[in-house]
């Protein structure tokens, strides 16, 4: 079974305790009265779909209940890093790292 490290519990926990929750670091545009339809549509619907490392939101739903962020490789399904919500994406320095994918702002 794939193990995922919960940054709040500080433990490797079984994958089925977690839920995927979409791309991480998506910034909500604002203020609302100055956002164009195109910007809002992009915020809601437009996502990258890179091959390689992506930053994602995950939730330890059957555990501590917290949302956190994870860098996962979409080719190997390896979780390169997990970090608390609100923290910046960690630099790519892990051994055997594939080419870093472009992070969204």
């Amino acid at each position, binding site marked *: *079974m794939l193990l995922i490290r919960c940054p*709040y*519990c*500080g*433990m490797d*926990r*079984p994958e*089925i*305790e977690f839920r995927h929750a979409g791309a991480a670091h998506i910034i909500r545009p604002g203020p609302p009265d100055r956002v164009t339809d195109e910007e809002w549509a992009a915020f809601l619907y437009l996502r990258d779909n890179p091959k390689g490392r992506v930053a994602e939101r995950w939730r330890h739903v*059957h*555990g*501590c*209940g*917290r949302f956190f962020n994870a860098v996962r490789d979409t080719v190997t399904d390896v979780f390169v890093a997990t970090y608390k919500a609100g923290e910046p994406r960690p630099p790519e320095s892990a051994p055997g790292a594939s080419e870093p994918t472009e992070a969204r702002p």
Partner: protein
Amino acid sequence: MADGFTDTPRFRLIEAPPLARFVLRLPAGALTAAGKAYGLALPEAINRGASHGERGKPGARVALHLGPDEWWLIVPEAEGAEVFAALEKALAAHPRSLVEISHRQVGFVLEGEGAADLLNAGCPLDLSEQAFPPGMATRSLFHRIGLMIWRMAPSVFRLEIDRSLAPYFVASMAESARDHS
């Protein structure tokens, strides 16, 4: 439900007496005040449980740290109102959420040398004593349902299951016990 309970030489599943339960959400700064009012220091480390007294007997207190700012408090049924009032009073100055969940869940005790094996029939956690030593408490899964597991001693597990899912849990336990016997 009692006829469905598991009772073999290697493990025994028994139902806990009626208990009062609370979910307390609170910032770390209010921990000392809460512990003082509750009569038991709330564990600071996450996924840890603390207790004193005997389950269901007067004065018994349980505190389980299950989320970064979340503690479950379990006390004898008759002392629920008193504990609730004491905590509300002591924490009046702190942002907090104290919610009674007494009837949301039912408690079980799973004990015996095969208890961890039986739990692992449906729970994916590593329940070896190195990875999950006595004192650990966490939510996890058992087959298709969520549950809370608190290891009180190497072969004693205290479990909390949502009330409506308890028959499923007891039946799954009985089935797994047949496989392990």
